[in-house]
């Protein structure tokens, strides 16, 4: 199954590459060139409504999708997670993996007309993002110095090699921010935050709060002839049923991430006017799991956690709760992320094995058939997770574990999980293309921090794992990193610090008249400078 998938992916990647190569040639063929003509308006759902659009200050999912059209990063990433030029036209890495030199495009301009230069890059990475962006802070604090060699050359010197350093230049990980607007100001209180200024193909025009965000074509965009669309409206539609209607009626031409509830997906897939794809999320590669507080009894026992892996049917979850979206997870790394290790201990769905493990761990059945009681704090992120909670309760009941479901809202959930006040919960986390960026943080013991969400909230600690993850990040030799990450994955799968569920896939629905919407691993967060509308 996974082989076939990989083959499928390779074929698609090859096709995408071929299309990319063919594009410049196509311009010389009049008939084909006419297809990519200017004009057209795209309506895209944005849900929930972002609080602000300044990507350097807020990296919430919907903010990334909207602001990805306004701001840009130095690099973007293909479906294979290999870097591609964006604001950096070329880059070099020194053999010791400590010095990264970027050559910038020379004709990029901010939306207010000022030129984009190396000084903006230095300011963004060494000042602004260090202050406001948790992920960028983690990466750029590894730099010894960041300097502009000239107006269009930037050099990053690292204290020690860091394998996934290039991944840090994707637009949401390090959006380039205008120095002339933010230098010397209180970034978060800057009045300019109401009218974001980036280098991207679309400019901010109007935000009718609660209703829509209007972006218009940047006529001064640095890629000649682009973008093709005249404007983009991001429409706020808070009710899931209404969003599905909007797609059916053609009021909106695109939805992404979890805009459409999973149970609506099969119905919308059959519509004649839209196409569905699950590509374009490779950079995020979310992995879902049952979060396990390993401090609490009986969850501190490895055998209990292994029993959970056997008791829960991940294929059922994929087919019946996620309606076919995603792949059952086999371990801590999503198989589309780099350094995935397939040869790990397998936990097939087998309630008998689960019961045997529970017996062995000393959890005998009581008079009422119950071996143990645990609480499950259901993640308040929509109907699907509620159904998952109900399934887990049933599945655990079959092996004699009594699960009490607890509900809360987003604030309560973050508050309780980050302060370790739970037994079981759900979670899903983005992997950002490299284990050092998106996987390590969940399992290493120096990231056990009370009050911090998406840290090692389970309290899992294994010195061997800590060592492997630390070593793997500090080299940029891929074979070496693969060995270290493979070893770490094998240990983790044996220890079950969380019970992995699915390598999640999100459905992107795009109106068939709009082409090139999903071309890279960041999919809908891409700048959309090459999206065009076929007119009839």
């Amino acid at each position, binding site marked *: 199954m996974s082989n076939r998938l990989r083959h499928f992916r390779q074929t698609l990647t090859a096709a995408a590459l071929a299309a990319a190569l063919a594009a410049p040639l196509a311009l010389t063929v009049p008939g084909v060139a006419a297809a990519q003509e200017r004009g057209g308006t795209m309506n895209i759902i944005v849900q929930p409504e972002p609080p602000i659009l300044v990507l350097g200050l807020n990296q919430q999912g919907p903010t990334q999708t909207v602001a990805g059209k306004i701001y840009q990063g130095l690099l973007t990433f293909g479906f294979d997670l290999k870097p591609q030029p964006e604001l950096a036209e070329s880059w070099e890495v020194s053999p010791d993996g400590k010095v990264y030199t970027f050559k910038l495009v020379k004709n990029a301009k901010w939306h207010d007309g000022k030129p984009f230069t190396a000084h903006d890059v230095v300011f963004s990475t060494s000042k602004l993002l260090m202050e406001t962006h948790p992920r960028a802070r983690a990466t750029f604090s590894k730099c010894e110095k960041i300097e502009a060699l000239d107006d269009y050359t930037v050099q990053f010197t690292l204290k020690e090699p860091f394998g996934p350093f290039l991944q840090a230049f994707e637009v949401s990980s390090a959006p380039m921010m205008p120095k002339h607007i933010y230098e010397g100001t209180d970034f978060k209180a800057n009045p300019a935050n109401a009218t974001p200024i980036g280098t991207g193909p679309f400019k901010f025009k109007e935000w009718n*709060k609660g209703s829509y965000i209007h972006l218009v074509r940047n006529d001064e965009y640095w890629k000649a002839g682009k973008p093709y669309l005249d404007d983009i409206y991001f429409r706020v539609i808070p009710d899931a049923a209404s969003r599905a209607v909007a797609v059916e009626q053609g009021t909106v031409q695109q939805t992404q991430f979890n805009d459409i509830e999973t149970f609506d997906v099969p119905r919308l897939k059959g519509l004649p006017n839209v196409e569905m794809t699950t590509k374009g999320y490779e950079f995020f590669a979310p992995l879902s799991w049952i979060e396990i507080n390993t401090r609490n009894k009986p969850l501190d026992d490895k055998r209990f956690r292994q029993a959970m892996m056997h008791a829960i049917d991940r294929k059922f979850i994929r087919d019946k709760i996620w309606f076919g979206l995603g792949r059952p997870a086999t371990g801590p790394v999503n198989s589309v992320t780099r350094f995935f290790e397939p040869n790990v201990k397998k936990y097939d769905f087998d309630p008998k094995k689960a019961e045997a493990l529970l017996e062995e761990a000393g959890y005998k059945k009581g008079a009422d058939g119950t071996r143990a009681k645990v609480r499950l704090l259901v993640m308040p992120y929509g109907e699907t997770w509620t159904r998952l909670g109900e399934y887990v309760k049933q599945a655990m009941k079959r092996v004699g574990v009594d699960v009490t479901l607890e509900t809360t*809202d987003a604030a309560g959930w973050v508050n309780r999980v980050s302060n370790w006040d739970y037994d079981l919960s759900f979670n899903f986390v983005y992997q950002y293309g490299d284990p050092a960026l998106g996987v390590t943080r969940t399992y290493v013991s120096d990231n056990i921090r009370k009050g911090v969400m998406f840290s090692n909230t389970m309290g899992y600690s294994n010195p061997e794992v800590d060592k492997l993850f630390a070593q793997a990040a500090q080299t940029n030799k891929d074979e070496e990193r693969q060995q270290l990450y493979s070893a770490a994955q094998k240990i983790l799968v044996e220890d079950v610090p969380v019970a992995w569920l699915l390598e999640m896939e999100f459905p992107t629905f795009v109106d068939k008249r709009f082409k090139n919407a999903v071309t890279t691993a960041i999919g809908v967060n891409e700048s959309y400078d090459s999206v065009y509308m076929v007119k009839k």
Partner: protein
Amino acid sequence: MPRIALFISQRLVKAVFVILAIAVFNFFLVHAAPGDPAAVMAGEAGAADAKFVEQLRQQFGLDRPLYEQLGTYMSKVVQADLGYSYRQQRPVFDLLMDRLPVTLSLTLTAFVLALLGGIALGTLAAMRAGTWSDTAITVVGLTAYATPIFWIGLMLILLFSVNLGWLPAFGTESIGAGYTGWDAFLDRARHLVLPVTTLGLFYMAVYTRLTRASILEVRDMDFVKTARAKGLPEWRIVSVHILRNAILPVITVAGFQAGHLIGGSILIETVFALPGIGRLAFEAVLQRDYQVLLGIFLLTSVVVVVFNLLTDLIYSLVDPRIEVAP
């Protein structure tokens, strides 16, 4: 007349204390919910470190002791300053004013239509009690009252928007259509038809039942018999004699509901994607945007107090036996 002036001024003085007490109570109420805005934003970002949350708490002033936060808030409230939403980077007053027109055009229209329709239908049903038209009105009213409001909304969308294609399903205007003048007005009106109908049906059911019950009580009283014996025409008996005496309970409920008009309707605004105050409030709850939530509570409490006062005044107009007393 001075009696009325005295009554109003005394009520207004009391109202100020009531509203201040409500503000203090609200403050503790919103802070009693678990988590805070910093936690919500950390959850939404999908990544966080200790500094991220700490910075947010500092920016929102949440690192201060609660009594100090209360002091800051109350000192602003007495200056009629509703505070600032750090999440949305805008003053709360501006946020409310942005949303108010949408909410009022929805709730006021629905309210007025429901009130007029409800009284008319209720009267009709009561005067023909026991006939098929009474039964029909009662059944429709009960159904509208008992059916979940969002479901009615979705079904109306399905019928009139998806299947028949007559009316737009959501939003307040055709975005990007660039209408001006009369066209823009018509466009907005078309967008309001379904939400107003949905919300109006619910209110109307209440008024219909109230009016009907109240009229049934009044219509056999002695003074009605006297009026009839005098040979007054039926329409005059109904409108002047019966309705005027039967309307008080309707005014009570209407006054009560009018106070809540400004709060909007969370369900209607969500289903029809209307950017109104109800949705603002709902989102503020989930996001723990304390300032916005407190602003909405305060505004609502002011309106409720004002409408209670108005209701009392209207009582004395409709029924001279009721006197205002300070």
